[in-house]
Structures are given as C-alpha cells and as structure tokens.
C-alpha cells in the first residue's frame, strides 16, 4: 500500500523526504536569518492551495499582512488571488502589539492556540505555517508553559489533520535548532537550513534532521533561493573548500 504523503512542492525536498511529509505532522523548520525559511514555508502553502486543493494558514508574528503579500509577489508566489479565493489565509501583526492587546483583554497564550484551532476548523485548513514559533513561545513566562503550549498546539493541529511547519529562528554559526532547546523534541520532524561560510560567500545547506515514522535522506544537501523560491538539489552533497 502506498503511504499518503503531503508534498511540499519543492521537488528536491520531497525527494529528501522520500515523497513528502506525513499528513498531520508538525515540522520544525530551523535556520538563521536570510536562509529562506519563510519562502520555503510559503511555497509549501502555495503548492497545497494551487496543486492539492488544500487550504493553508500563514501566521506571521513580525510582519504586517500587506508586506508579506508584497514580498512574496517578488518571489513569483502570488498570494493575493489565493487569499481572495479563501485558499490561503494570511495573518500578520507585530508581536509587541499582540502582547499588549492580550494583556489589555486579559487573554493568555492558550487563547491564541484556541483561535488557531477555530480558524483551521472554519476555513477547512490542511496546511499551517507559524512564522515564527520563537515569537509565539516568547509570550509564555516559564519553560513549563512554553512546552505545554507547543504540545497543545501540535496536538490540536494533528487532531485536525493539519500538516504544520513551525519556523524556528536560530543564530548564525550555531548548531542549535531552536531558541529554547525544547521545540525540536516536541515536533514530529526537523528540517535544518544552514548558511556555511566559505571564503567570501555563504553556501546554503539543507538537511532533514528528524522525521518520526518516515525514512529520509540524512546528508546536508545544497539548496538555492531563486526568483521562483527555494530549490533543493537532492543529489548534490555540500562541500567546502579544502
């Protein structure tokens, strides 16, 4: 029997994942700034909406909605018509504003999780991207609360049969996969993006670090950010000058 896979729409990455992601799983997409995390995640949503008839939800806790649409248009990822057709829902806003607003109305971070669940149900969403999970977990006061939030969020999305990408921002030249060091243990899979310095340039590398219940490529492979988005080269091993 052929196992059902959720195609990311990035050909090379689907090959590394042996056909795509497992449905209903949460994936941590980790990488430093400028590594193409948001682009890759939006490609995943775009592909779902245009090729698989799967509605997507993109939550960005840093940028305004209009700016996100504008930026993606430059990458040939036109989100506006998809949003009009209710194929993709984009939610954007600055975290500081959200934090203040939550305090004003006496809400806590679990209200956000419930709200995400409500949006997913109402819009029949099957693909979710949270950009970034660091910012969402920053709303928690303690590590215990942070872990509880992540577990609750991933469970709810999984129960709703949603495949989700949680973006994790990490510092450059670090082997850490997340800011708080707990995110990678809660999720089902981890994809790492690296920018390895070689002389006067950065070589981008992508690897599947973990994928529960699925075989996957374990090497660091080359990828590029082009005007069409992220392209992964599944047969090219990353090399540095020797």
């Amino acid at each position, binding site marked *: 029997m052929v196992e059902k896979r959720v195609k990311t729409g990035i050909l090379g990455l689907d090959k590394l994942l042996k056909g795509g992601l497992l449905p209903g799983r949460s994936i941590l997409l980790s990488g430093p700034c400028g590594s193409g995390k948001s682009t890759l995640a939006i490609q995943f949503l775009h592909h779902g909406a245009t090729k698989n008839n799967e509605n997507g939800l993109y939550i960005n806790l840093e940028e305004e909605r209009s700016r996100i649409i504008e930026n993606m248009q430059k990458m040939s990822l036109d989100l506006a018509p998809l949003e009009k057709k209710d194929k993709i829902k984009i939610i*954007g806003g600055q975290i500081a504003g*959200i934090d203040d*607003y939550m305090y004003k109305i*006496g809400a*806590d971070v679990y209200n956000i999780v419930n*709200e995400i669940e409500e949006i997913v149900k109402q819009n029949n969403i099957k693909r979710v991207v949270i950009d970034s999970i660091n910012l969402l977990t920053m709303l928690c006061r303690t590590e215990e609360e942070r872990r509880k939030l992540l577990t609750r969020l991933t469970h709810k999305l999984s129960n709703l049969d949603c495949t989700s990408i949680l973006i994790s921002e990490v510092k450059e030249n670090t082997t850490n996969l997340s800011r708080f060091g707990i995110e990678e243990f809660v999720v089902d899979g981890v994809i790492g993006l690296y920018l390895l310095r070689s002389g006067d340039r950065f070589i981008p590398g992508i690897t599947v670090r973990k994928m529960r219940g699925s075989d996957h490529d374990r090497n660091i492979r080359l990828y590029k950010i082009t005007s069409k988005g992220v392209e992964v080269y599944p047969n090219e091993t990353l090399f540095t000058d020797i």
Partner: protein
Amino acid sequence: MKKIFIISAILSIIFIAIFFFFPNSQILLSFSGIKFLAGEFYRLITFSFVHVNFLHLIENIIALSLITLLGYEFGLKGKKFILYFFLVSITIALASAFFVPVLVIAGASLGIYGILGALSIKGSNFIPKNILIPIFIISIFYKVILDLFSSQEITNLDQTLFHLSGFFTGLVFFILPRFKKKKHILLNKNG
C-alpha cells in the same frame, strides 16, 4: 494620579470618618439578614464601611493599601477595583442573609479579599497561578496560623472562612466573563 489610589484613599477616609464620627454605626449600618429582609436594604452597601474596633479598622486600612499597590502592579483598573469590592461584599452578604440571617456582618474585609481573589488570576501574567493562589490563601489563614502558634487553639475560624469565601467569590467573578466570549487576538491584530 491613578484612579485606583484615589478610590482606595476615599474608601479609607470613609472608614475612618464613620468609625470616629458615627458612634452608632455598628447598630445602624452593619448587615444582618433579619434587618435586610425587614426592608433595610441600604445595609447591603453600608456594612463594608463599618468597623467594630480600632484594630479592625487599622487591619482593613493596611490590607486595603496593600491590595491597592498589588492591584496597581497587576494593572487592575480603578473601576474594576471598586466593582469587585462591592460585588463580592454584596454577594456574600446576600448569601448570609438567606443561609444565616442572624449573623451580623461589618467591615471591608469581604471586599478586600474579593479583590485579592480577582488579583490571584489577574496577576498570573506576572507570577504563575499555582504560586500566587496558594500564597494568597495562606495569607488569609494568617490569624489562624498565628493563634495556633501562640495559644495552640484555633480562633477566628469563622472570620477566616468568611474571608476565604470572599477570596473565591472575587476569583470566580474575575473568571466568569472570560467564558462569555471567545477571545480573538490574531484576527483582531491582523495588519
């Protein structure tokens, strides 16, 4: 100046004024179910301003001052402060009127502990609930604990249970509106 401080100061001035310049206040203004059911409804409000002795007055003014500072720190608005104060006092007084009508109640402590109950949830943005609520409950039992250490006897238990009921009533009043409607944060802040 923040409204919460003004409201607290006004309440303290009224407590002091009634204690010193209204010698019959305990008879005329305190609450009992019998008097209330006989038609003296004003007692539902006035009993909170009456204090039975000087120590009672001082204790409640100090408690009110501390609760005001805590309320300010936790971001409790002045109108909510006064709302919880009276809402809790009135609720407990009404309950006592029906269950123990002979009981006479006087003092601001029900309202004060009601505010404390509300703050135990409101303050969870700063201190986790599982720390804050037990600390507040212990503070309610301070007289019982002191008695146990000093005389190995439990006194003030009825008063403490009243305070505890005030605390939980305030806590419930704070939580109740949260169930009323779903809170939308992301959609309301969607840029």
